[in-house]
C-alpha cells in the first residue's frame, strides 16, 4: 500500500475531465494542455506501476482502504500492467495529435471534447486496472457513453445515426455483461475477480454459472465487435471525427479483448472455458469468419478510413483466434498482437487524420503525388502497411508468427491457413494504397504527363507536411512498429510469459 500510482492512473484523467470542462468556460485553450498533462501523468504512473510489478510482483491496491472482497480492489499484474502502458501511451499520442484537427473541425466544442476524451481514457484504464467485475461494468459504461458522445460530435452526415446504432448495440452488450455479473454474484456472493476465481471451480457444474459465463462472454464480444456482432463498428468508427477514431479504434476493441482474456483465464479457469465448454472452437470459427468478412469488405472500400475499420474487424478476429486455440503459444500471440495491432491501428488512424487535415482527401484513388506532398507521413504509412501485411522486421510479422504457431500446435490447420491467407488480403489492400500514393501519376494520365513530369522532375509538387503535433506522434508510432518487432522475443520473455496463467 506504499504507492498511490495505481490510483493516479485512473484518478488523474477523471478529475482532469471535470477541471477541463470548468476551465473551458473561462479559456478554451487550456483544455488541450490539461488533457495532455493528465494523460501524460497517467502514462507515467502506468510505467512506474509496471516497473513495480516487474520488481515486486502483483500489486493490490485497495481503493479507500476497503478490504476486498467488500471494497473495490485494483490489481495490477503483468497482463494489465502491460495493457495499461499500451492504453495510456496510445491515448497520449492520440490526444497530442488531436490539437489541430479539433481547432479545425469544432473549436467551439473543445472543452466538451477534451472532457469526454478524458472520460473515455478514464474508462479504458479503469476497465484494465480494476480487479472487480462490477467495477469493470462501471468503467465499460463510462468508456462507452463517452465514445457515443465523441462519435456523434463528428460533422459527417450520418455520424449521429451511427452513434445511435452503437448506443443500442453497446447497451445490449453492457446489459449482457451486467446480467452475467448478476448471475455470478447470485451463486458466489462476490464481485472480486480473485475471490470469484477461488469460489467458482466448485460450481462449474451449476447451470447458473454456465449462463453467467455465456452472458459475460457475449456481452464482451459485442463490445469487441467479434463477427457477427460487429455491425455497429464500421459506421461508428469511420464516421467518428479523425481525432476520436485514432483513440477508439486502436483501444476499445483491445480493452474488450483484454476483458475476454480475464474472463476466460482469470475469473474462470481454462479448464472450464476450453475443456468443459466448446468456447474455443465456437470463437475460433467465428474469428475465422471475421477475418474473411473483414478482409473482403475492406477490399470493396474506396475510402481509406472505411477500409481500415473493416480491417479492424479482421484484426479482432486475429486476437480472438489466438485466444481460442487454447494453448500457451497462441495466447502469447494474441497478447502480443493486442500491442502490435494497437500500435498499427493507432498509426494508421493518425495518418488518416493527418492526410484528411492537410488535403481533405480520404478516397484512396485520389492519393496521387501524396508521397511527394507528405513524404514522412507516407513513409510511416508504408512501414505500418508492411507490418499489417506481416512482413518482417515490422512487428506485425511476429505476432502473426506466434498466432500461426499456436494454431499449428492446436492442430487447427484451417486457422493457420486463414491467418496466412489474410496476410495476402492485407497485401492487396495496402499495396493498392501504396501504388496510388507512390506510383499512380504516370499511368493514370498517359504519356503526356509522363513527358511533362520527367522533364520537370516533379518540381511543381511542393512538400506540404502535416503539422508537427500530428507528424511527431505518427513518426513515434512508426518507429515503434519497426523496433517492437525484433524486440518481441524480449517482451515475451520479460512480460507476456508471466501474464499468462501459470500451468496453462
Amino acid at each position: 500500500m506504499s504507492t498511490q500510482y495505481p490510483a493516479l492512473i485512473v484518478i488523474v484523467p477523471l478529475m482532469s475531465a471535470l477541471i477541463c470542462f470548468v476551465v473551458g468556460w473561462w479559456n478554451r485553450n487550456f483544455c488541450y494542455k490539461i488533457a495532455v498533462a493528465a494523460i501524460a501523468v497517467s502514462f507515467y504512473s502506468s510505467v512506474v506501476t509496471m516497473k513495480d510489478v516487474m520488481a515486486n510482483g502483483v500489486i493490490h491496491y485497495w481503493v479507500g482502504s476497503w478490504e476486498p472482497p467488500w471494497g473495490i480492489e485494483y490489481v495490477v499484474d503483468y497482463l494489465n500492467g502491460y495493457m495499461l502502458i499500451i492504453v495510456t501511451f496510445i491515448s497520449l499520442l492520440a490526444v497530442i495529435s488531436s490539437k489541430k484537427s479539433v481547432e479545425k473541425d469544432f473549436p467551439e466544442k473543445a472543452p466538451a471534447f477534451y472532457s469526454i476524451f478524458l472520460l473515455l481514457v478514464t474508462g479504458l484504464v479503469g476497465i484494465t486496472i480494476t480487479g472487480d467485475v462490477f467495477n469493470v461494468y462501471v468503467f465499460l459504461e463510462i468508456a462507452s457513453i463517452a465514445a457515443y458522445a465523441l462519435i456523434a460530435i463528428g460533422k459527417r452526415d450520418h455520424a449521429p445515426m451511427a452513434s445511435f446504432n452503437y448506443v443500442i448495440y453497446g447497451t445490449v452488450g453492457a446489459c449482457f455483461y451486467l446480467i452475467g455479473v448478476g448471475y455470478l454474484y447470485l451463486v458466489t456472493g462476490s464481485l472480486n475477480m480473485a475471490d470469484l476465481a477461488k469460489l467458482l471451480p466448485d460450481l462449474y457444474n451449476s447451470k447458473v454459472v454456465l449462463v453467467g459465463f455465456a452472458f459475460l462472454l457475449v456481452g464482451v464480444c459485442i463490445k469487441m465487435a467479434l463477427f457477427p456482432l460487429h455491425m455497429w463498428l464500421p459506421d461508428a468508427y469511420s464516421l467518428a471525427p479523425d481525432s476520436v477514431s485514432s483513440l477508439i479504434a486502436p483501444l476499445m476493441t483491445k480493452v474488450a479483448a483484454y476483458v475476454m482474456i480475464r474472463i476466460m483465464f482469470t475469473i474462470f479457469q481454462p479448464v472450464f472455458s476450453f475443456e468443459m465448454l466448446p468456447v474455443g472452437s465456437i470463437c475460433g470459427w467465428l474469428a475465422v469468419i471475421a477475418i474473411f468478412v473483414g478482409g473482403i469488405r475492406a477490399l470493396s472500400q474506396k475510402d481509406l478510413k472505411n477500409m481500415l475499420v473493416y480491417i479492424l474487424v479482421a484484426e479482432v478476429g486475429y486476437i480472438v483466434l489466438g485466444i481460442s486455440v487454447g494453448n500457451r503459444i497462441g495466447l502469447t500471440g494474441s497478447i502480443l498482437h493486442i500491442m502490435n495491432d494497437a500500435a498499427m491501428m493507432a498509426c494508421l488512424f493518425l495518418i488518416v487524420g493527418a492526410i484528411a487535415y492537410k488535403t481533405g482527401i480520404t478516397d484512396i484513388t485520389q492519393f496521387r503525388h501524396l508521397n511527394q506532398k507528405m513524404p514522412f507521413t507516407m513513409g510511416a504509412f508504408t512501414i505500418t502497411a508492411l507490418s499489417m501485411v506481416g512482413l518482417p522486421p515490422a512487428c506485425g510479422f511476429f505476432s502473426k508468427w506466434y498466432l500461426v504457431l499456436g494454431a499449428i500446435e492446436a492442430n487447427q490447420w484451417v486457422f493457420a491457413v486463414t491467418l496466412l491467407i489474410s496476410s495476402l488480403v492485407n497485401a492487396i489492400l495496402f499495396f493498392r494504397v501504396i501504388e496510388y500514393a507512390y506510383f499512380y501519376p504516370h499511368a493514370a494520365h498517359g504519356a503526356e504527363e509522363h513527358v511533362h513530369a520527367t522533364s520537370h522532375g516533379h518540381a511543381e509538387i511542393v512538400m506540404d507536411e502535416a503539422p508537427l503535433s500530428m507528424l511527431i506522434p505518427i513518426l513515434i508510432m512508426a518507429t515503434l512498429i519497426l523496433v517492437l518487432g525484433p524486440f518481441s522475443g524480449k517482451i515475451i520473455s520479460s512480460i507476456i510469459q508471466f501474464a499468462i496463467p501459470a500451468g496453462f
Partner: protein
Amino acid sequence: MEVVSSITPLLTVLVSAVGACLILATGERNRNLRESWTIIAAVIKFALVVSMVPLVLEGKVIEFTFINLAPGLPLQLKVEPFGMLFALLASTLWIATSFYSIGYMRGLNEHAQTRYFFCFAVCLSATMGIAFAGNLITFFIFYEILTVATYPLVMHMETEEAYLGSRKYLVYTLVAGVVLLFALAIIYSMTGTLDFTPGGFLAGHGTTGLLIFLFVLLIMGCGVKAGIMPLHEWLPTAMVAPTPVSALLHAVAVVKAGVFGILRIILYVFGPSLLHDLGVWLILAYVVSFTIIVSAMIALAQDNFKRRLAFSTVNNLAIIILGAIILTNNSITGGMLHLVNHGFMKIALFFVAGAVFVKTHKKNVSDLDGLGRQMPLTFGAFTICALGLAGVPPACGFISKWFLCLGFLEAKEIFFLIVLLTSAMLDIAFFGPIIYRAFFAKAKSYVSPHFDEAPMFMVIPILFTAAVSVMLCVSPNAFVHVFDIARMAARSILGAG
C-alpha cells in the same frame, strides 16, 4: 568447427542500409554526392566481405547474434563457406552494377533516380542478410525485405506494363513468402529450432508424409524466386524494369536468393541422407530437368533481347538446383560454382543488352545486325560470356559444368547428364544467332561504321565482369579462393550427412 564472434557480418548488412539512408537524405539536390554514397557503400561492403574470407578458409565460422526472437530462435548471422560464396558474388557485382547504373540512369535521363538507388541499396542489404543468415527465420526476414525492396524497382518505369509486371511479381513472391512462412512454422513447432546445419536437421522428426509436404512447401516458397517452372511466370514480365535492375536483381540477387534458399533447404535443412530416404530428390530433379529443357526452348523463340536472357536465367538456375539435388560431392561443388559463375557471366550479358539499348534504343535480337562493328568491346564481351554459359572455355561456365558432369557421372545419372549437355547445345542455339547477327550479318538499318561505344560507365563494368568470368576459368582460386570455398561447403555437407 571453431566459432568466432564478430560484428563484421552485421556491418556488411548495415553498410548499404546506412548508404540507403544517406542516398535518401541527399536526394536529387546533389546527384554526384548521392551516387558517391552508393559507390562508397559498395566498396566498403566488398572490403568487409573479403576481410572475412581468410577466416572462412581456415574453417572458422563467424557468428553474430542480434537478439532472441523466441526461445531457440535467434536472429543470427553466420558466415560459413556457402554463404560466403553468395556474399562474394553479390558484393562484387554491386560495385560493377553501381557504376553501370550511373551510366544507364544518366544516359537515359531517368526519373525517380533517388528512389531507384535507395531501393537498390536496401536490396543489397537484404541480400547480405540472406547470404549470412544462420537460420531459416533470419533467412526469411531478409528474403521478405528483398521482395519488398525490389517491388519499386520493377515498378520503376510506371507504365501500364510496369504495373502489371510489378503486381505479378508481388503476387508471386508474397504468396511464396506466405507458403514459406507456413513451412517454417511447422518446422519450428516440430523441432524447436530453425538453425541451418550442414547435412540437415530434420532427420528423425515428423512422419514421412509431413516431411514430403514440408519439402514441397519449402521448394515452392523458394522456387518462385528461383524461377522453377511453372513458378517462373513473373520473371520474364519483370524484365520491364530498367536493365541494371534486371541485371543485378534478376540475374543475381533475387533469383539467386531463391536458388540459394533452395540449396539451403536441400543441403542444410533436409540433408542428403533424408532426401534419399524420402525419395523426393528424384522428383525435384525431374522438375528442374523439365525446366532446363523447356526454358531453353522458350528462349529460342524470344526476340526481345532481355526476355531471351531471362529465359536463359531460368535455365541456368535450374541447372544449379539440379547440381545440388544430385547430391554428390562434385555435383554440389559444380552447382555452387555455377551459382557464382553464372552470376558474372549473366550480368555481363544483361549489361550488354542495356548498353545496346542506351546507345541505339534497340530492344530486339533481330535489330542487332551489324552492331558488332560499332560496339566491338561490348559484343566481344558478350561472345565470351555467352559461349561460357554454354560451357565453352575460356569463360568460367566451363569449370562449373565440368564438375556438374563429373558429379552426374559419379552418381551414374546418365539421364541428367544428357539433359545438361542438351541444354548446353540449346544455349549455343539461342546465343549463336545474336553473335552471328552482331558480327557477321549485314546491317538492316543505319549502324555507325566506326567505333562508337556506350558511355564508359557502362563499358568498363561489362569488360570487368567478362574479365572476371575468364579469370574464374583460368584460375578459379585467384584472390578469394572461390573454388576452395565451394569445395569446403560441399565437403561439410557430405561429411556430416
